[in-house]
Structures are given as structure tokens and as C-alpha cells.
């Protein structure tokens, strides 16, 4: 019997496919998310919209608070560590979280190195803007990838950009002659073996979710139709007028993502969506997606 193999790490993410992972800051919110049909919750002290508003250094959440959420629900609980902050990751592993998000939403702790995720029994999900970034994270041991999008904006445009970029780069690899994959690997700054595997599979070897700016059922279905395996919703639910209703609707839209009639039904009367931010009004040094490399 072997525990915490790469197969079991990727396997949990496979079980989350077609589902919605929701940011929650209290056990009560976690219960609302579970009741709405979330497949997992991300336990954190402040949702990205508040991190953006408050400024300052953003760190791993209080283990006490995460523990409270673990006890409140039966679905898997994820939590965020800062990029490169492997001790925060050790603490999260010790309290028994089911997945760690090494996240650009928190302030990076290391501006060169991400955490060596092979050193952990708990699986990691990491953000990526393009294929090269995704493959570097997988090389470091990530068992799940998500688009970065631009968290806390309620604006899906960056998540769309990152998903389209990644899928276009995968399609391009599939058109190359095998002799050309060596240079492709060099240009992607990723290991040749992984690049060759992507060219053969036509997809990432791990589950790939969308994240960053998803605020409506239509946003979730858009990302699913673009080809992601599921969605993370951060500020979009608990910063909206009616979180329980919106959470339920986004779950339903992720299941029926190709059925426009169902989506029309699901999208009715949800109340106010979170107020969005246009990306071009955010100063360049405040863009979260620029963190990580």
C-alpha cells in the first residue's frame, strides 16, 4: 500500500472535475457553499476583492480559522500558501488540508523559486497564464493547474486570455514535427519530456480549472466551453447580492455548460452580481497575475 502517490494527488482533482470550488472566509460560508453543491471550498481570511482593497502583505490564513472550516463541512478543504513559502505549506499539510493553492493572490515570499511540491504528501494546485508556466509548475510537483485570471475583479477577461493562450499553445504543439519539439521545449522553458507528452495527449497531464474573475453562471459556462475541467469562484459569490442563490446557479451552470436553455433558466433573478473592476484601470504593479513566473 502506497499513500499520497502522484496518481492519488491528480486523482482527487479528477474527482473535482465538472465542479465549482468556492472561496469562503467562515464556517457559515463554507456550509452555504456545500449546500449549494460546491465540490470543495478554499478557506481564507479575506477574499481576493478585499485583499485588493486592503493592500498590505497578504499571508496564509490562521490555522484555527482553517480548522473551523474543515470541521464544518465534509467536502475537501483547500487553503492558500504564499509563492515559495514552503513553511506555510508545511503548516497547511500538518493541519490536514486536502489541497494547497500556492497562490499569486497572496504576497510572494520568494521572487525566484516556487515551493518544491515534490517534498509534500498533500497535493498542490498552482496558477498559470500560459503553457510554459503550467509546465514549470507541474515540473515542481503541482498536481492541478488553474488559470490565474485576475482575482478579485469580477472580470473574466484575464481568465479567458489565459485559457485561450494555454489551449492554443497545446494545439500548436500537436501540429509540430517531433523533431521540432526540442526547440518548442526551449521556447516554453519547460522540460522536453513533458512537452512531448503534451503534444501526444493534446491536453495537460493534470486537471486544469479556470480561476480569477468568474462572477456569473455564464462566466462559468464560458470557461467550461473553452475547455477547462471546472471552475474556482473567489469573490464572485460572497461579494454578490444573494450568495446562496448565485452559488447554486454557478454550480448548475458548470454541469449544464453546453445547454443554453438550461443556462437561461439558471441565470434568472440572481440579484446583484459583484461590482467588477476594469483591468486597464488597475495600476500595473497591482496586477496579481504578474506574480509567479
Amino acid at each position, binding site marked *: *500500500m*502506497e*499513500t*499520497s*502517490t502522484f*496518481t*492519488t*494527488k491528480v*486523482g*482527487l482533482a*479528477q*474527482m*473535482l*472535475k*465538472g*465542479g465549482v470550488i468556492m472561496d469562503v472566509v467562515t464556517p457559515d460560508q463554507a456550509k452555504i457553499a*456545500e*449546500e449549494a*453543491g*460546491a*465540490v*470543495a471550498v478554499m478557506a481564507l481570511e479575506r477574499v481576493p476583492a478585499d485583499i485588493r482593497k486592503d493592500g498590505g502583505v497578504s499571508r496564509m490564513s490562521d490555522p484555527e480559522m482553517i480548522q473551523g472550516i474543515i470541521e464544518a463541512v*465534509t*467536502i*475537501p478543504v483547500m487553503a492558500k500558501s504564499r509563492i515559495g513559502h514552503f513553511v506555510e505549506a508545511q503548516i497547511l*499539510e500538518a493541519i*490536514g488540508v*486536502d*489541497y494547497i493553492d500556492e497562490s499569486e493572490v497572496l504576497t510572494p515570499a520568494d521572487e525566484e523559486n516556487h515551493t518544491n511540491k515534490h517534498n509534500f*504528501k*498533500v*497535493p498542490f494546485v498552482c496558477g498559470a497564464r500560459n503553457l510554459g508556466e503550467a509546465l514549470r509548475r507541474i515540473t515542481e510537483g503541482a498536481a492541478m493547474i488553474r488559470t490565474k485570471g485576475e482575482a478579485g475583479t469580477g472580470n473574466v477577461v484575464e481568465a479567458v486570455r489565459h485559457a485561450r493562450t494555454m489551449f492554443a499553445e497545446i494545439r500548436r504543439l500537436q501540429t509540430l514535427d517531433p523533431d521540432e519539439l526540442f526547440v518548442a521545449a526551449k521556447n516554453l522553458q519547460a522540460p522536453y519530456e513533458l512537452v512531448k507528452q503534451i503534444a501526444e495527449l493534446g491536453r495537460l497531464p493534470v486537471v486544469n480549472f479556470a480561476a480569477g474573475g468568474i462572477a456569473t453562471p455564464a462566466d462559468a459556462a464560458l470557461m467550461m466551453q473553452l475547455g477547462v475541467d471546472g471552475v474556482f469562484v473567489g469573490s464572485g459569490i460572497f461579494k454578490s447580492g444573494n450568495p446562496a442563490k448565485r452559488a447554486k446557479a454557478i*454550480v*448548475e451552470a*458548470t*454541469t*449544464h455548460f453546453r*445547454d443554453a436553455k438550461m443556462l437561461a433558466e439558471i441565470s434568472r433573478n440572481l440579484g446583484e452580481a459583484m461590482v467588477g473592476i476594469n483591468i486597464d484601470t488597475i495600476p500595473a504593479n497591482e496586477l496579481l497575475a504578474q506574480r509567479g513566473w
Partner: protein
Amino acid sequence: MPVGVLALQGAFIEHEQILQGLGVETVQVRLPEQLAQVERLIIPGGESTTIGKLLVRFDLLEPIQQRASEGMPIWGTCAGMILLAKEIAEGRAEGQPALGLMDITARRNAFGRQVNSFETNLNVPALGEEPFHAVFIRAPQIDNVGAEVETLASLEDGRIVAARQAKLLATAFHPELTGDARFHELFLGL
């Protein structure tokens, strides 16, 4: 008629790929009209709370129970097994729907949290001598089986992880994640 894979959430594509590899036509079941097109149904791994709630919201719970009573074979893997079970050891949370078709008591997250997920080789006499490589992810186990239920596989410590009752099959692990199609073939023979 094709084989249905419940596609509300979870690892349904993995099941379809194995079935298609066996030359079997598949249908993703999200609504009652798709259920009507299939002759058997797989309930995949995923989150049982999510799948249970969506079964009710999209009016699939009673139609599946009805089809089961008419003899449609159903296989539940992991979350699917929890939904098939008549009893849950720790009790079902209030308002948590389930099919409750199979005379077993399932225990959720019986091996602990994600860091305790594991792989092992199982002896499954119904599949022949060669062991079956099984992947357990936040897996349930079967605490008790009824008189009509046949145990198909147990771990070395005796915990039951696969069982069959007439046309119903339950596995605590994920045959859709390994290349071995023998459990799929067993299900197609029910």
C-alpha cells in the same frame, strides 16, 4: 442501447474512455431524457454531496430508482457507492439525498483525509487470479453487507471495498483511473 454515465459532476469522462475502448457507446446523463436512452448507468467518482443535490435538482433521483426497480444495472464508484448505499455509518446529513438502493452500510472518508489516499493491489476472485490495481481517494468503505449482497473484494485488514447485489455493483476505489477494464467488463455482464 448505450451505457449511461451520470455526468452531473466528477470523473465521468474517464469512465467513458474505458467503455469506448471496449467498443461500447456511451451517453452523458444530466437530465431525465438522457436517462431514458440508456440501458445501464455508471455513477462516477466525484463529490457525493454535490452529485446527490444535483440528482434532486435535475429530477433524476426518482427516475433512477424507478429504472433500478425495473432491473437496470447500476455501478457506483466511490461517491457513486455512497449514493447507492441504503445506510451511511455516520448517518446522512439532514437534507442529503441518496438513491439508497443497495443493502450495504457505507462509511464516508473511511481512510482519512487526502494525505491518506492510497494505491494497492486487490485480490478480486470474480475477476480472476491477477490482482486488480486499485486507487483509493478520500475513499469510503463498506461496514456491513446485507444477506443478498456478495462481497467482491476486501483489503488485507478485512475492510470491504467492492460488492455486488443482483444488478448493482459498488466499488470504493476508482477503476476508471487505471488502465484495467476488468471491472467495466464485469459490469457490462450484469
